[in-house]
């Protein structure tokens, strides 16, 4: 049981690491998207992400200047908040992808 617990903790830590990478990558691929649409796309990819987790991260990354956001209201409907990468965000994403791929290469060297 303690091994399972340890594994779960490790997986949680790992998720924290690549979750932002996945979010930024998806937004970059779509160019511009809103929360609900983004969540659907991430879950369809197999990420299993809850809305209560996604939105606070989007909020924080917007505050940090990694994402840009703007409200859009259609003629008939409720307002939606659309996200896109800022210039700074694009640079951060590029670096994150490099670092992550570098980590994968290292792991492949080390794996038993």
């Amino acid at each position, binding site marked *: 049981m303690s091994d399972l617990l340890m594994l779960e903790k490790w997986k949680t830590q790992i998720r924290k690491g690549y979750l932002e990478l996945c979010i930024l990558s998806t937004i970059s691929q779509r160019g511009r998207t*809103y*929360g*609900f649409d983004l*969540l659907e796309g991430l879950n369809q990819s197999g990420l299993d992400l*809850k*809305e*209560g*987790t996604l*939105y*606070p*991260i989007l*909020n*924080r990354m917007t*505050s940090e200047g990694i994402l840009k956001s703007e*409200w859009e209201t259609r003629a008939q409907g*409720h*307002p*939606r*908040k659309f996200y896109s990468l800022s210039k700074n965000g694009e640079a951060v994403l590029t670096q994150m992808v490099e670092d992550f791929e570098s980590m994968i290469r290292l792991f492949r060297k080390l794996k038993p």
Partner: protein
Amino acid sequence: MNNDPMLESYLSEVDSYLSHRLSVSDKSEIVTEIKSHILDSKEKQPQTPMSELLRSMGDPREVANRYLSEKGLAPVPVSQKKNIIKWLVIGFLGTVGLFLLFILILVFKFSPLISVNEESEQVRILGGLVDIDGAKGHISIGDGSGNLNFSFGETKERLTVEGVKTVEMNFVNGDLDVEFSSTQTDFSYSCEYAGKTRGEFKFEKQSDVIKATAVPSLGVDCDLTIPQGVGLILQGQNADVDIQLNPQDQYNIKAEVSVGHMNTPPPSHPQGVPVEVRVSNGEISFN
């Protein structure tokens, strides 16, 4: 749909947990985005009950805590609302406790609450704060040492006049009947009175004067009988003073009514027994 009560209640809870920690505009953005997401979910799954969609979003406090955590702020404690209720209860019980303590102190200070002495016809209430003397027909409200009493009652007495030159009395709201007697050798008085007094109301012999000891604030109704050779000094306001002089005696009369009426007094004799009566607002009658 946009104002579903369950959704609004959920959003209100999230907002309350974010209060005081984020700016109004930040909170507004967060709440609006959550609402937008729920409405998108409802559009996509119209058959799914609102309660289930909200459950999927998560507990309002936990959702708020994730936002706060991402911003590096302290999360909302688990039982914030319960703490408020707890402190309200403590505050209420504390107030009740202080009130009971105050009552106990009062009861202790003014014990016994009521004591009755049937023999002397006395009733003392609140440790003597109210003193009822049935024998004298006197009620006193005060500390009993004479600092301030509220009294009403009746008092009568006879006093010897050996060495006494004058009877003196100040009054407010009086009805005074004074008789200069040709037969009585003592000074006597019978008075009904009411009001606040400093000390008990009665006449006392003080050296060569017999003097009323107090001025009841609501008034006096007195019958005074003054023996031969003893003078009178009365001064007060709002009073009717009726003076019956002894035809066998001579009097040095000084009488004055500042507002009111006075009949013509008998002729005054400089060597006579002094009779000084001053009334502000009232009447003086010499018979």
